């Protein structure tokens, strides 16, 4: 599987079973003892109909590549799928996975990978309310190093 296929972007909600089944088929014979998958599901809260996302792909790709290199140094692999555009409540917008020979490496890496994703990946979230997009500013995090032009 090429790096391109390890990071997959979809218009709208994710076909979760298709993505995770394909990852399992791809890696189950590669002697990884641990395959950990995290599936993010949009929750119905605060009156939203769903979420919507903008992604800046060039920097997302380089961010993902740096994580792939870090994982490879631990003999592991990271995988990710994310939605672009609108994703309604109770469907999935984000899946991350780690394949590793050892359980402990996979458990620690999925935690670090998902946390860094939340604060560094160039993705912007909007609430969908009455058909309009509202930037989720209060749940967003300034990227490390922000503010140099102020």
């Amino acid at each position, binding site marked *: 599987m090429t790096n391109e296929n390890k990071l997959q972007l979809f218009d709208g909600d994710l076909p979760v079973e298709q993505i995770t089944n394909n990852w399992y088929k791809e890696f189950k014979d590669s002697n990884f003892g641990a395959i950990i998958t995290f599936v993010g599901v949009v929750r119905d809260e605060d009156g939203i109909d769903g979420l919507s996302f903008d992604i800046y792909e060039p*920097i997302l790709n380089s961010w993902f590549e740096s994580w792939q290199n870090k994982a490879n140094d631990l003999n592991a692999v990271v995988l990710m799928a994310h939605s672009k555009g609108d994703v309604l409540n109770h469907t999935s917008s984000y899946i991350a996975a780690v394949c590793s020979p050892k359980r402990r490496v996979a458990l620690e890496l999925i935690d670090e990978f998902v946390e860094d*994703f939340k604060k560094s990946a160039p*993705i912007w*979230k909007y609430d969908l309310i009455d058909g309009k997009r509202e930037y989720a500013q209060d749940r967003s995090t300034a990227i490390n190093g*922000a503010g140099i*032009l102020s």
Partner: protein
Amino acid sequence: MVTIDFLGPINRDSLQVDIKNLSELSEILKKDEQVSSWLGNCAVAVNDTMISSKDIALSDGDKVSLLPPVCGG
């Protein structure tokens, strides 16, 4: 000219400006009502590489991107 892209929710069209460094860009954007309030929270990339210092020289054809606070997932 240097192209300035405003990503995500900033909601401003790209700019073409004649500048030689990021300090000059900072002075221009501080006077831009649509953008000035974002500057404190925006990260910056030059030619799609994230940077952490304003001491960067810019050349004709370079692209500067402003990245407001993120929230994937």
